[in-house]
């Protein structure tokens, strides 16, 4: 069944129909939350909260991109989570293994097709990018996550973060510029194909 029909049924209170939509989008929402919050547990909480809020507020969806609309709910959930964390600061949580010990990477991240070396490189790259993302101001981070990680177009990003199109263009350019500066510090870690040029931009 196509997504619009499922949304129509969900708007009338059909939980099964909504859950089918959840299955389609849960990875995208979790990844967006993870890149904004930088913490697996908080991201999972924000994602669950976003789906609950989306179901409650389905009457407010008036057509257009449903993914962008869902991204708005997850963005709001992330902002709420960050506000809560600001009020009650806690140490960042590392993912835990079966015995409760901290592990470098969660089990679901391991790709069996990659060699251990490749996996280590992929992890380092991911850490570098996440570090640079977390150094961005929140409003820049959100825009770059929506546009470059989630692949939304500018109009969809504008829906997701509720700012005008012109602001999206400007924030995205600033975010990419800052990311470029930050990632240059990790030059040797980056794959050769992605290594950034070191030329000045004056």
């Amino acid at each position: 069944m196509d997504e619009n029909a499922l949304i129509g049924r969900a708007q009338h209170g059909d939980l099964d129909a909504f859950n089918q939509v959840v299955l389609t989008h849960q990875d995208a929402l979790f990844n967006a939350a993870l890149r904004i919050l930088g913490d697996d547990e908080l991201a999972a909480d924000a994602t669950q909260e976003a789906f609950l809020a989306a179901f409650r507020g389905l009457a407010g969806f008036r057509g257009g991109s449903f993914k962008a609309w869902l991204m708005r709910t997850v963005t709001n959930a992330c902002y709420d989570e960050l506000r809560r964390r600001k009020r009650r600061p806690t140490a960042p949580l590392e993912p835990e293994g079966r015995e409760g010990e901290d592990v470098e990477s969660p089990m679901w991240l391991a790709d069996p097709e990659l060699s251990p070396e490749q996996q280590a490189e992929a992890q380092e790259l991911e850490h570098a990018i996440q570090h640079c993302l977390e150094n961005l101001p929140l409003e820049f981070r959100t825009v770059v996550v929506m546009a470059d990680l989630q692949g939304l177009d500018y109009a969809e990003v504008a829906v997701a973060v509720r700012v005008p199109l012109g602001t999206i263009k400007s924030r995205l350019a600033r975010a990419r510029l800052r990311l470029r500066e930050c990632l240059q510090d990790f030059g040797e870690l980056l794959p050769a194909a992605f290594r950034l040029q070191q030329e000045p931009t004056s």
Partner: protein
Amino acid sequence: MNFHDVELLSAYLDGQLSPSETTRVEARLGRERVLQSVLSDLRASRSLLRALPQRKAPHDFRLRPQMKRLAAPAPSAFPALRFASVLASLLFLATLAVNGLTPLATSHLAAAPAPAYGMGGGAPAEAATAAPGTGSQALPAAPSTPAPEQIAPAPDLQTQAQKTVPQGPRAATRTAPLIPPLWQGILAGLAVALGVVAWYLRSARTREFRQRWIHN
């Protein structure tokens, strides 16, 4: 090279420029090496972000009827009804404010012209009280100024004027509200009726949802 150029290059990278802007940017890219370099950097950082592996969700996020915070979606008419109810309430409050402030405004208006009426009778009366002193000390030709007795009727005129003012058209504007009570009644009725309908529809949806998903 300024920030506007970076913004243009970033939008160019995403294909978000108009055809004329695209032509201009491409012409500049052909002759400015700095622009080429920045474009290449922006492209590289965008590619890095896009290459970031997408994690699988750590668990299933489907909603379950046991979830405490699960609530039924509001009916599609609910947002419009709620908005209309709030709007009618605000308009009703605005009419109350307008009608409440209008008597104040008219009483100010009524108070302001009083000296104008009074000037006809009051000023000479003041002059009349001052006249004997000034007339006797500064002006020897005091007999030419009217005697206090001649001006004395002025206070009577003033009180007469004050008595006549409330009976004029101002009295009518002060008592009649600017917005008729009928309109206020309609707005108040609409606000309540729309609110009740919205609440009823939402309750019915919640009841139906609970019966179908939670109690079964």
